[in-house]
Structures are given as C-alpha cells and as structure tokens.
C-alpha cells in the first residue's frame, strides 16, 4: 500500500469530499496562503476557488459563520489555527452548534467540522500547545474525533465531513509529519468504533492520539519484560466505544490510559471512570493514567520534555499494573 503523511492524508480527504459534495467549503485564517500553518488546505483555492474563505482574525465570527452556513445546509470545514484559539468561540461551539438540534426539537442540523491543530509542536508555550479534548466530550451534541495515524486521519475526516452533527477534529501537530499506509480506494471510518492497534493478552493500554504510537513502541520494549500489551485506540472520544474498551480489559484484567494532555479531569478520566464502573470484577490491578502534569505548557525544551509523556512513562505504567 502507498504511504503518506498524516497531513497529506487530511488534505486528500478534504479534496475528495469537496469534489464529492458541493456543499463542503473551507473557512479559516490564512487557509489560502500556505494552506494554513500546517498546509492541510493547500491546493483548495486552486481547485475550488469559490469554496475557501480566508477570514479576518475573529474566531467567534468564523465559527459563528460556520454554524449559520451549516444551518442553511452547507458543510463548513472550519480551521482554527491553533486549538487554543477555540476559547474565543466557545459560545458558538457550545451554546449554538452543539445545542441547536436539541433546542429546536430535532429540526436543525449543524453539519460542521472544526479542525483543531493541537498539542505541543514547535516550542510556543502555554497559549499555543493545548489539547482540551475533555471539554468537548463533556458537551452533549458534539462529537470528538482524535486520529492517530494517516489512515485514520483520512477516514475519520471524511466521515466528519459527512456527519449531520458538529465534529471537533483534533490534529496533533507533532503527528502531521507521521507517515503510514493509506489505501488508494475510498474509505470512511465509522464514529464510535475503537481500533485495536495491537493485540495482546497481559494489559490493555488505551491510548489517545500521539500516545498510540508511543504505546506501540512501549509494547515492543515491554516484550523484553515478558509483557504482551493490547493497544486500544478509541479514535472517537465522543461517541466513546465503551464496549471495545471493556472487552479488552475483561480479557487482560489490566488497564493503562494514556493521553498527552493533563490527566486531571482530562479525557482519560472518563475512560478510567467507565472502566472502574464496568470492569470492576475483571480488574486485577488498579487503573493507571499516564498524562501530563497539571501545568500549562512551558517554553524551555527541558521543561517541555518533562511535561509531554513519552514511551518510558507508558512502559513504566504497564510495569506497575503488571506488578
């Protein structure tokens, strides 16, 4: 199979969906110039000149416009340059987009995708490195999607564009250059279906976004310890595939949950709580969460390295649950 980068996979998904459906359009800051800071929207201006809108710096205006266009039957793909700036448009996301269907008794549909480059990239410190998946999980009416590979990025983005309800699409910046196989044939990936990225018998590692790759690497290292881990990638955090997660934990009896964000009230908390509720009789060791400490992202590289969890932390956590 051909391989491509995460970034190219996203771009291909966008191009395909825009070609397939005239109601899809792109809106965001600097999305034309370089195709955005991560070049995901490159080539769209040339190919679909009337369906890409470069905006003033006004995130509430951007998302608000997306909500309205979606209500009017279009399918906006909104780019928020850095996830951190979605804080400027939370009313639009939470009080407008998410609740419109419910408040209107099912009449309204808001088929909008908000793409959110997130996490640490270059060293840009506290206002350019956040993740915040758990915020959006907590809001009924939103779907939260977190691809970990180029394959999933493409399939999930295509599904997101087709969804009749709003999608928060998390793109970890450090994944943009990740390479992986992507089929030539068209495919989509259903929401709410976790993917078992590695099968194993001894412990279940539920890993989100970039932690999937780190968990897989930890898995190789742990073979030397004689531990065979299963790596479960939820792929969508809302809806969350509780069944697949619990089935794996039932098999292994042990659960480690890995996220790059602060674990305190993070996305892993919901997963850990669900396991605690549903898998009590299967668990042979306490659930362990791996995530960043509860601090803003610092600037200096040595500090950043202590914040972002790595392969070693995942492996250590597995060793702990195997004790």
């Amino acid at each position, binding site marked *: 199979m051909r391989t491509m980068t995460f970034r190219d996979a996203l771009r291909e998904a966008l191009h395909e969906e825009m070609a397939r459906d005239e109601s899809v359009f792109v809106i965001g800051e600097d999305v034309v110039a370089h195709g955005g800071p991560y070049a995901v929207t490159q080539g769209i201006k040339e190919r679909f000149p009337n369906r890409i809108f470069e905006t003033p710096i006004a995130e509430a205006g951007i998302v608000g416009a997306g*909500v*309205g266009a979606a*209500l*009017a039957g279009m399918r906006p793909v909104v780019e928020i340059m850095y996830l951190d700036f979605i804080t400027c448009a939370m009313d*639009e996301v939470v009080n407008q987009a998410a609740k419109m269907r419910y408040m209107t*008794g099912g009449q309204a549909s808001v088929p909008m995708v908000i793409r959110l480059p997130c996490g640490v990239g270059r060293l840009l410190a506290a206002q350019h490195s956040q993740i915040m998946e758990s915020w959006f999980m907590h809001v*009924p*009416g939103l779907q939260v999607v977190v691809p970990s590979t180029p394959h999933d990025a493409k399939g999930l983005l295509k599904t997101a564009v087709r*969804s009749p309800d709003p999608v928060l699409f998390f793109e970890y910046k450090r994944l943009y250059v990740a390479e992986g196989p992507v089929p030539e044939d068209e495919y*989509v990936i259903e929401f709410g279906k976790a993917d078992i990225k590695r099968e194993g018998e001894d412990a279940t590692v539920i890993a989100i976004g970039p932690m999937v790759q780190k968990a897989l690497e930890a898995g190789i290292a742990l073979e030397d310890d004689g531990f065979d881990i299963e790596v479960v990638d939820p792929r969508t955090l809302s809806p969350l595939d509780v069944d697949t997660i619990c089935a794996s934990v039932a098999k292994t009896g042990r659960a480690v949950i890995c996220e790059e964000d602060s674990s305190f009230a993070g996305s892993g908390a919901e997963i850990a709580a669900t396991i605690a509720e549903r898998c009590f009789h299967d668990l042979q060791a306490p659930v362990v969460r791996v995530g960043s400490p509860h601090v803003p992202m610092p600037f200096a590289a040595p500090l950043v390295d202590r914040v972002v969890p790595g392969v070693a932390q995942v492996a250590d956590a597995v060793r702990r649950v195997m004790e």
Partner: protein
Amino acid sequence: MSLSADLCLRMYRDMWRIRVFEEEASRQTGLGTVQGALHMYCGEEAVAVGVCANLRPDDYLLGTHRSHGHCLAKGAEMDRMMAELFGKAEGSCGGKGGSMHIADLSLNILGANGIVAGGIGPATGTGLATKIRGTDQVSVCFFGDGASARGTFHEGLLFGSLWKLPVIYVCENNQYQQWVARKNVAVVDSVADMAASYAMPGVSVDGQDVTAVYAAAGEAVERARSGGGPTLIEARTYRFHGHSLGDRQEYRSEAEVEHWRQNRDPIKLLAAYMRERQWLGDREDAEIQSAVNAEVEASVAYAHGCTDPSPEAVTADVLDTAWRVTQ
C-alpha cells in the same frame, strides 16, 4: 415607495396577533401553564412586522431572547408556538426549547436565541451559504441595542461586509438592556452610526412607525437580494413591559412607559394612519381584533389539548442517531 391598503391591513393584523398572543402568554404564565421566562415584545411589533413584510418564506431569520414577534411575523404557527410555551410535545420545538428557542426550520426561522448577539454570527453564515450557492435569499438578524456591545456584533458585521453578504442586521434599540438604561452603559447614541466601522450602510428609523420600518427594510432587502451587500438598520423602539415578567422596572418611570403606551404605540399609530386614509373603519378594526382574539384563544385551546413530551424525548435529538456514514 407606496404602501397599499392591503399591505397595511396585513401588517396591522400581524401586529395585533403579536400583541394579543403575548398578553395571553403572560396571562398563562400567571396561571402557571406557561413556565420559564417571557421576554415581552409588546411595543416593538412594528419592527418585526415591518421587516418581515419584505421577506419571502425562504429567507432566513434569526432572533433573540425576545422573539415571539419575529417568529409570528415570519409566519410561524401560533398554535405550535403556544404549545411550545406550554412545554408540549406538539410545540414548535417539541417542548425542548421554550420561549427563548422557538424555531421553525420549514420557514427558515432558524431560532430565537438565549445568548445576546448569539444570532449575529450564524445569520452572517446563512448569508455566506446563500452567496456560495448563488441563490437570492436574504438573511435577517434581529438583536437588541445591548447586543451591539458584544464582540460577535463586531465580528459578524465585519464578515458580512467583507464578503458583501445578503444580510440585514436589525438592531431593536429599545433604550434599555436588562435592568439598565442604554445611556448608562453605552458611549454612542445611535447604533446605526457604528455601521461606518464596517463600511456598511447604516440607517436609523422610527421603530414605532411600521411604514418607516417597512420602507427602510425594503430598501435593505432589495440591496441584499441584488448583490449589494448588507445593511445595518437601527429601529428606535420601546418595550412596554419589563425585561421579563416580574421585572420591577426601577430603572424607568411609570410616566415614561405611559407616554410611550399612549403616544407611541405602533398599533395605534398604524390605525390612525389607515383611518386617515379611510383604509380602516370601526367595523374592520373590530373584525380584525376579534379574529385575532379568536386565533389566540384557539392556540390556548390547542396547547391545552397537547401532550407532555414522552420520557424518551429527553435523550432524543442530541445527535442524529439515524445517521450512518456511507461510502
């Protein structure tokens, strides 16, 4: 710009419909059949009616917390609106929205809105959709004078102007916000003047005079429909009731309210205008009012006959659960 007798009579009836519907909804609140907050539109009817008389059913409308008038003027069914206030399954939103969220997507009434200035961005987005599709719908967004303080007003109008979208931004300047006079929390008198920052035409009209509103909105709609871009209309108006039911209104005098009710009631003003032209006589007037009363009474009867939402309704309509992605 000439107003026909027919049009005036229609607008007259529509204003009465709003007035009587709301007075009845307020009475029902007293009886406990209607719960939640009611933000009464009485006194401002000429704005909704004058604007909406220019609209087609496929034009978009976005409202505020004070939107009974906007919805009725755009054609929303009164029965279902009353049922919504009663919290019934047959209500406009199945009892899930209530007064602040009435919507009728079949008429492109995209919803009242509980967030001040919350509709301005989305209204701009509907205009963008129209532009992309190349159709000739216009979008109307109502909002209060208080909303002009919010960042979303600034960002929405900028986008509307930048892309020359077919949007009419209608500010209902009723001189008060929640419990505070506009003059205490604003720095410019006219909201229309703010249009300059967005390189957009801004007009201020007497919001009690439905003929003036009709004319100003007509011009804006015409411009929008023909590709000329957005307009900011400020309608100077007044709310006869408090911010919501139960407001003690310590921020204004009874005499002031009385003055507006006596001398600046948009319904009375239109009646006088029509009577002068012999378009309205006592008999027609009585007929209109009794028809409206009957319609409102019927809406109450309808609402009483409706059912409570089913328990399962609580978890329905969060997402479209019927949807499955297909290749």
